[in-house]
């Protein structure tokens, strides 16, 4: 069930009513409902692996208790490393088994051996990248005596399976989440309304901007794999539109997850903080997919850079490269993701060497416009990220390199992609919407999400007019996209 579907809306309404009207007695009953709802949610998405999820919850819960019970020593380490191997092993098997074997086989075959390998038909449990990371982080924190393992099995399982975040994150930390659900949640009007506004904004990002950008990016990328249909400038546009697409898609989804959770008076961590308003790569990664980056920094980069600290800047560079290699690999079992990660890691090197730091966490805090330097900084960063996004999108390395080659060798200004008048019109409208979107984001960049404060001080009619405008834009986008297919199809005969 995706968030932007009718099925989910019905599901959410049901859970909301049950949560606040039926299971409202105490924290325990509320959690039971959330857990059951989350299990139902997961089963509707992928029932085959619900037992895996449950097993993961139980095993990690008890492992953590065993670890904390023992003093430092062999047995404790045994429990700890078993837990890590179990979780990592799970991830490696389901997600990366075929990839690793295939890569070895390819490597072997370079030496002339003619081995062939038929990938195993391994189904991927939904959300596995997210929940295994949550468990690994939990075990590490318990092992480091940073947190006490919880004795609340119900709470722990609710935390693990929590439906707003189970499929696409954020990667929530136990210590931030559990305390919230161990108290009885009282309905909060302000928070619920805030949640609805955040959901609306997330829906807008996803359906109006991301899906429309996806249409353009898909056309350009899909054809570029086999042939060279488009000019270099169109390919550049393809990369830019794709970057906007993944930002709006993922941050929109994260906004919805956050907003949905607020309806239950539970806060989950914000995954994005306007990353494209950063002027350097460090800032960017502190604001993009925050829960993943901070997980990687806490559990990979920090220990790694600590071990390598005697190599000073070189140590830092190696640590960053390895960390980002993992960031890339986490996204998928493909060399393209590894290159994506490494490239981003390389982008850090100048900053590490120069030792410069960000002067302001929020760009141009308090002021309305940027200086020319800051603006070009943001624009340059956007271009840099778009370049790595080509690898993210490409189906394989060959596709990516062909894309770059075609992009550089054909940099003429032609609009070959855009054919009929109404296509041009819809692209211009889309561009206009994107510009307005970025202006709204800019104005709201000091908030949790762009429209967090927008209109709160207005009179109700005006504020509601804004809501209806956004809703109509969403409906409009669905209608426009829906009618597109027909046009293509009919022209075939």
């Amino acid at each position, binding site marked *: 069930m995706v968030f932007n579907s009718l099925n989910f809306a019905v599901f959410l309404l049901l859970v909301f009513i049950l949560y606040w009207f039926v299971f409202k007695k105490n924290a325990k009953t509320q959690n039971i409902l959330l857990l059951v709802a989350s299990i139902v949610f997961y089963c509707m998405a992928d029932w085959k692996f619900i037992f895996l999820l449950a097993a993961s919850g139980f095993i990690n819960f008890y492992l953590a208790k065993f670890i904390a019970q023992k003093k430092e020593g062999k047995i404790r380490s045994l429990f700890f490393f078993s837990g890590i191997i179990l979780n990592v092993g799970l991830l490696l098997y389901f997600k990366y088994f075929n990839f690793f074997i295939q890569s070895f086989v390819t490597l072997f075959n370079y030496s002339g051996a003619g081995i062939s390998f038929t990938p195993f038909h391994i189904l991927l449990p939904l959300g596995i990248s997210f929940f295994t990371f949550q468990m690994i982080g939990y075990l590490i924190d318990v092992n480091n005596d940073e947190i006490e393992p919880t004795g609340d099995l119900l709470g722990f399982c609710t935390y693990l399976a929590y439906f707003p975040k189970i499929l696409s994150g954020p990667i929530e930390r136990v210590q931030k989440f559990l305390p919230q659900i161990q108290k009885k949640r009282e309905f909060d009007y302000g928070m619920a309304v805030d949640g609805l506004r955040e959901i609306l904004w997330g829906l807008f990002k996803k359906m109006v901007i991301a899906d429309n950008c996806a249409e353009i990016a898909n056309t350009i990328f899909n054809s570029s794999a086999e042939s060279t249909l488009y000019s270099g400038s169109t390919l550049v546009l393809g990369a830019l539109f794709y970057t906007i697409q993944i930002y709006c898609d993922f941050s929109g989804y994260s906004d919805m997850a956050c907003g949905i959770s607020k309806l239950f008076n539970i806060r989950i961590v914000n995954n994005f903080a306007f990353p494209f308003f950063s002027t350097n790569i460090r800032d960017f990664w502190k604001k993009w997919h925050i829960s993943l980056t901070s997980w990687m920094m806490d559990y990979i980069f920090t220990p790694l850079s600590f071990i390598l600290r005697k190599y000073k800047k070189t140590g830092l560079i190696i640590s960053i490269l390895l960390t980002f290699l993992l960031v890339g690999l986490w996204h998928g079992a493909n060399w393209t993701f590894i290159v994506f990660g490494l490239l981003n890691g390389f982008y850090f090197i100048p900053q590490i060497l120069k030792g410069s730091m960000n002067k302001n966490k929020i760009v141009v805090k308090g002021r309305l416009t940027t200086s020319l330097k800051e603006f070009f900084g943001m624009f340059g960063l956007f271009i840099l990220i778009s370049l790595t996004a080509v690898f993210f999108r490409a189906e394989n390395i060959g596709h990516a390199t062909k894309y770059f080659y075609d992009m550089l060798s054909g940099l003429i200004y032609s609009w070959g992609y855009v054919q009929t008048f109404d296509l041009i019109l819809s692209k211009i409208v889309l561009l206009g919407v994107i510009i307005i979107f970025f202006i709204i984001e800019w104005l709201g960049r000091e908030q949790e999400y762009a429209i967090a404060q927008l209109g709160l001080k207005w009179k109700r009619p005006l504020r509601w007019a804004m*809501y209806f405008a956004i809703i109509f834009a969403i409906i409009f986008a669905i209608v426009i996209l829906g*009618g597109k297919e027909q046009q293509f199809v009919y022209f*075939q005969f």
Partner: protein
Amino acid sequence: MKKFIKTIIVFLLLGLILIMPLPIIYLVLDPFKVIKTYDTFYDPNAKGWVFINRDYISTTTFIKNYKNENYNSYILGNSRSRFFRISDWEKHLPLNSKCFHFDANGESIYGLHKKLAYIDKRGLEIKNAILVFDYGILSQDKPRTGHLTIISPELVNNSNIIDFHLTFFRDFLTPKFLYAFLDFKISGVVKPYMKEGDLLINWYPVFDPISNESFDCYEWEDSIRQNKYYTPGRLSKFYSRDTIVKYSPIAIKENQMLILYGIYEIFKKHKTNYKIIISPLYDQVKINQFDLQFLKNLFGENNVYDYSGINKYTKDYKNYYEPAHYRPHVAREILNEVYGGK
């Protein structure tokens, strides 16, 4: 909480009121004529029309008449099949043949099979049949989308009824259509931009209410006889072709095979006298030999006729109204050849 619920309810009610006009306008106007039943789909007195889903016209005409008319001979295919005239076909059929044009725009092998299955379920005989194929039909094993090509709900046991009506409503709302439609309603004139994508048309689609045969070609044939048809505008559409023989990719994959088996089973059951004709398309792309061989193996060498590629029909542009449709005399000659033995 009470405040929250009250606010939400008021908001939703307000939204409903704001949105209401559009569905109401749609239901009242019924531009695509899929909500109410009509005696005629196209009003002969009008100056322009919304292009109606041909599958829907064919299906509703069939349902309206089959009990009385006892059809037993069918011509199926996409818009190209319309130019196989019943008067030409009847010459090759036994005397008691009652013919029906069961065509659809953008027909798919999926839709074609559904039509035959529908006829079969109604307990009617399928004594004679012509299937007019091309790569487009053969490769399309799934129903098409969009208001011009979506399949009628009756043919699929009403399983797509919601999708069907939502498609029309949604296509009604697309700015391009809505604007064109309102403009036409107000001005009464079909302007050139409205014809793009066949949303509105200014030529009157005549068809027989019983046989569902289209007669619009009469006007065009007249025009050709008077040397008025092939205007520079129309001529410019006839692109030049290569002399190298080109083959289309394989259309018949696993799914398509299953559907074709299904069609064969129906023909076997009814002991149908059928002919399969691969259209002589202007693009001169020959059907993939694998596809042709499959069809011949399944339906019989004597029942499958391939007119695709470079031949006397496809060479001359005058055999076509425009690159997508060949003229009735081509179909007539093909019928003569195909039934030649008799």
